């Protein structure tokens, strides 16, 4: 099928699934189709006429990644009309590879949320189960739904504590968070810099991998981008034959939904059948990781979001703002930042305050180090960022396999009655890899036949749970390879429905 035909299908889906609210803004249709057509012509002209790379492919960009041709709002009223004067490096790289920006995807405001409901543009909607609308997960819910409903070929998201993996798990697509420092953050609106990672979503691991290969380049404009000298030390030479797969026992929590647990066991069985061996491992600090994350991320957020004052760009409250004795933008910030963002700013401001920093921020940093040490102790490969002798830990495993989220997607109605803390619980399995900066990918795995919703089964819709593969820092290729193998194994295991069918209502 030609690129133009694909592009037309995506555009058609954008109209059909407009109600899912996956996009905040869309690219101009005419110029988009023209570009797809010229990509077709270029490929015909090339000697092999082979289809490869990203040329002519439609890619959705999360709306907290700067683009010059479409507004960049981070789904906040504060930036409702903000046009960035520059493209983010990752956008520049995609355009350079011939990819077409399909539009900007909806999200939780500034990336803060687990269901993509905290948006100035309204909630993102995912598929329906019975009469209920399901959560798309967050914060990159728009990107996930756009990919799941084939409104674009792939999408970029950002992952701070699971914001790519969780929506991928909820919507049945592949969501990948690379090792921290591999993909440039220049032009990515910061939520919590020390955790923020650009992530990739696509329907297949190969799509994710082809984008990753284009973006995995040192960027001198991002001070946290790993320089070539460090990159050259990363990655083990392991291939996907005979790996040691770790099963982190701490992830088998009581609140883990039986359906998800079953899918986890099924996935492990598949990998064992591929010839790999299974090894239970302990990550004792996991139980503190979520609390540490919800201290650290809001602390950085309270700092990063201090710049939004409406003075140089962005929204500004009508009339006079502030009193002679206060700053000039108290009203502006109160009016244009949403409730969840305000909550996290206050939380962060508190945990950094003189009275609380020792008990909260400093403690959380210590926990972060412990979480990282836990991972280093269970992996065979050494962490190249940690000083000291980099010797193999022969008792260690190559990758870990665990669920991405403890439950299947909740309905939006359920979420409405939740306390903010309940929403935070969704991140319990994704946060540890974020704290340690490790590569992690969520792969959709079909749930057991007996657990499926009969109504959806009848419609031929494949219900999945997200399984997460976590690797040592820099072992991104190994993680991607295991993900591909798992995806293939579970596809062979389920004789139902072809993977090309659209999984959304």
């Amino acid at each position, binding site marked *: 099928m030609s690129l133009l035909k694909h592009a037309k299908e995506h555009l058609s889906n954008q109209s059909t699934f407009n109600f899912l609210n996956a996009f905040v803004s869309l690219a101009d249709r005419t110029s988009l189709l023209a570009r797809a057509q010229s990509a077709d012509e270029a490929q015909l002209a090339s000697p092999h006429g082979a289809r490869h790379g990203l040329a002519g492919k439609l890619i959705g960009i999360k709306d907290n990644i700067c683009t010059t041709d479409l507004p960049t709002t981070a789904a906040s009223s504060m930036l409702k009309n903000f046009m960035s004067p520059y493209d983010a490096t990752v956008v520049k790289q995609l355009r350079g590879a011939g990819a077409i920006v399909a539009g900007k995807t909806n999200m939780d405001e500034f990336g803060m949320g687990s269901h993509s409901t905290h948006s100035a543009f309204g909630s993102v909607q995912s598929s329906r189960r019975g009469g209920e609308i399901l959560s798309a997960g967050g914060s990159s819910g728009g990107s996930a739904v756009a990919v799941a409903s084939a409104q674009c070929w792939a999408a970029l998201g950002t992952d701070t504590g699971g914001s790519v993996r969780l929506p991928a798990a909820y919507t049945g697509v592949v969501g990948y968070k690379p090792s921290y420092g591999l993909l440039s*953050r220049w032009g*990515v609106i910061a939520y919590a810099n020390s955790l923020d990672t650009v992530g990739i979503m696509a329907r297949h691991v190969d799509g994710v991998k082809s984008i990753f290969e284009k973006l995995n380049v040192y960027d001198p404009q991002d*001070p946290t981008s790993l320089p070539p000298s460090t990159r050259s030390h990363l990655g083990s030479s392991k291939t996907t034959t005979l790996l040691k797969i770790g099963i982190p026992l701490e992830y088998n929590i009581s609140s883990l939904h039986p359906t998800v647990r079953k899918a986890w066991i099924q996935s492990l069985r598949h990998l064992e059948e591929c010839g790999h061996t299974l090894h239970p491992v302990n990550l004792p600090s996991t139980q503190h990781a979520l609390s540490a994350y919800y201290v650290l991320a809001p602390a950085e957020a309270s*700092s990063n979001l201090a710049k939004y004052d409406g003075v*140089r760009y962005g929204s500004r409250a009508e009339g006079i703002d502030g009193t002679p004795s206060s*700053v000039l933008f108290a009203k502006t910030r109160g009016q244009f930042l949403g409730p969840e963002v305000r909550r996290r700013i206050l939380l962060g401001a508190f945990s950094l305050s003189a009275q609380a920093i020792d008990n909260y921020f400093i403690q959380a940093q210590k926990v972060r180090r412990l979480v990282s040490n836990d991972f280093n102790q269970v992996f065979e490969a050494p962490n190249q960022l940690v000083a000291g002798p980099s010797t193999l830990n022969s008792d260690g495993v190559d990758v870990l396999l665990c669920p991405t989220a403890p439950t299947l997607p909740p309905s939006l109605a359920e979420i409405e009655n939740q306390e903010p803390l309940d929403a935070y619980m969704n991140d319990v399995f994704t946060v540890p890899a974020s704290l340690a900066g490790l590569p992690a990918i969520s792969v959709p795995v079909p749930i057991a036949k007996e657990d499926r919703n009969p109504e959806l089964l009848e419609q031929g819709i494949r219900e999945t749970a997200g399984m997460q593969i976590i690797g040592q820092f820099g072992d991104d290729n190994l993680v991607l390879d295991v993900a591909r193998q798992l995806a293939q194994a579970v596809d062979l295991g389920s004789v139902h429905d072809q993977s090309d069918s659209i999984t959304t209502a």
Partner: protein
Amino acid sequence: MLAYHTRTALAAISRGPYICRSCLRRGKSLPLAVAHNPISIPNRTFQTDAEPPPNDNNDTTSFRKLLKDAAKKKRKAARDVPPSSKRAQKGKDPRLEKWELTVGIEVHAELNTARKLFSRAATSSSDTPNTHVALFDTAFPGSQPQFQRETLIPALRAALALNCDIQPKSSFDRKHYFYQDQPSGYQITQYYEPFARDGHVTLYPHDFPAGVSPEDGPVTIGIKQVQMEQDTAKTIHEPPSTHLLDFNRVSHPLIEIITLPQIHNPTTAAACVRKIQTILKTVNAVTTGMEMGGLRADVNVSVRERSAPSTEHGHSYSGVTGLGQRTEIKNLASIKAVEEAIVAERDRQIDLLESGGVVEGETRGWTLGNTTTKRLRGKEGEIDYRYMPDPDIAPVIVGKDVVAHLRNTLPMSSDDCVNMLVDGQDYRLTSKDASTLLILDDGDRLDYYFDVVESLKTIFSGNAEILPRVGKVAGNWVLMELGGLFRNEQWSESRVPSKQLASIIVHLLNKQITGRTAKLLLARKFEGDPSSVEQIIANEDLMLRPLSREEYMDLAQKLIEEKPDMVNDIVEKQQHQKVKWFVGRMMSKGAEGTVEPGTAEAVLRELLQLPPMEQK
């Protein structure tokens, strides 16, 4: 510190682009250390414009006006207040016998760098507003800091000159507060790990204005730390209610120098700030002096009863214990302001304590010309800066080799410079003249002096008689004669170019003109005579036309005969000094520039049969 928003300036506003493309190209490549004449104090090497910044910009004018107004106000206050209530004008104040003052100082100085601290935008002081601003400088969403490592060089030079230990690892932190001149809502500074610690500055008698040193011998003041940080944007008030922001200054690299609370006298505090300023200028670390806004100071002031039992209830600051409750006075923009604010705050605290009150820990402000400090905010209004390590900026690692290289190429210190001016065979100045030269006009006067001496040395290089005297003579002319003319005017080295003054001195030392003619020539050049010294001498026939011995004899003989009683006084009563009277008469009787006093006296002594005069 908190927003230098009190500084105002009138500046033309233009709608320049936020991002200056040329900034990316303009910065010059910076050598690790600029080769220096060890004693010269060069102008700003990194100035990116061809033209030097104008001296008479609005900042200075308004500051000088401020000083004038302050002086006026003070004179008026002095007239209004009955003499009995004037305290401690002369002699010892019994209250100061009882109470001891303690002061610590924080000095902020703009570093002399080509680029900003975290972007490649050029630094500038007087360019069109908002023309040197990168995305990060205005906190655009998605932008990130790029630490410009070259900015470390002047900072390290400064810290080395202040005898600090350079830290092998330092890091940057965010200090949060909201103000419109702070685009990101925080200032990036070095709170947890500054790049330099444990230095000191020593004040010698020559560091104090003549004769006012309150200290016995040298006094050493510890420097707790030196840290790098960002400057804020410049706020320009347009009355009644418009505030314009110029982001050219935002993120200009600053260093903050924090002294220990080891100063017990307002004059010493002022001398300490002046000394730090001199040191920073000497090593070419800073852009401008205090009066140009390149240097600002905050002071911490406390008093304690000398006889009170120590420690117990005292406060402790920077490891110094047993101190009284301190207050902070922010944003002092001149050395004079430092001294006056400390005096005012000391007296306020003593008044308060003696009347049974308690000093509150608070932040206070002080305006030039006022007699009291003003409360800005109390402890309850104190900002919690929520210091957080900046997650985007890697720690700064400084190699030992860099430190060693910078240490070895450090220009001569001001103390060594004074020693050289006093003991060096080229100069032989008095210690007082040497330190005066060093202090005046941010070191410009010293540069000028060196230029004059250099010219004279070249001209008299073979003259063993005159050569040893040129340094001292030049010093007299630069400080006394020229200094007198500049008494009420702003110093400018181009008013009387150094070559022209050297020419005057050459003619004088060669006995081609009289001292009176020399002073006349200097005044003519000062008033703007465009002709060269040589031309004026030639055109107006000022060259000493030596009289013949016979002519001297005749003139002297004639005058002696007119005043026999005076001759009697000299010869009979041995009042030899009265010879000078005849010398004066000869000079006034002779045509302008013809009678040379030395020769005249010799002839007179010969005629009066007195012993020859002593050699000078």
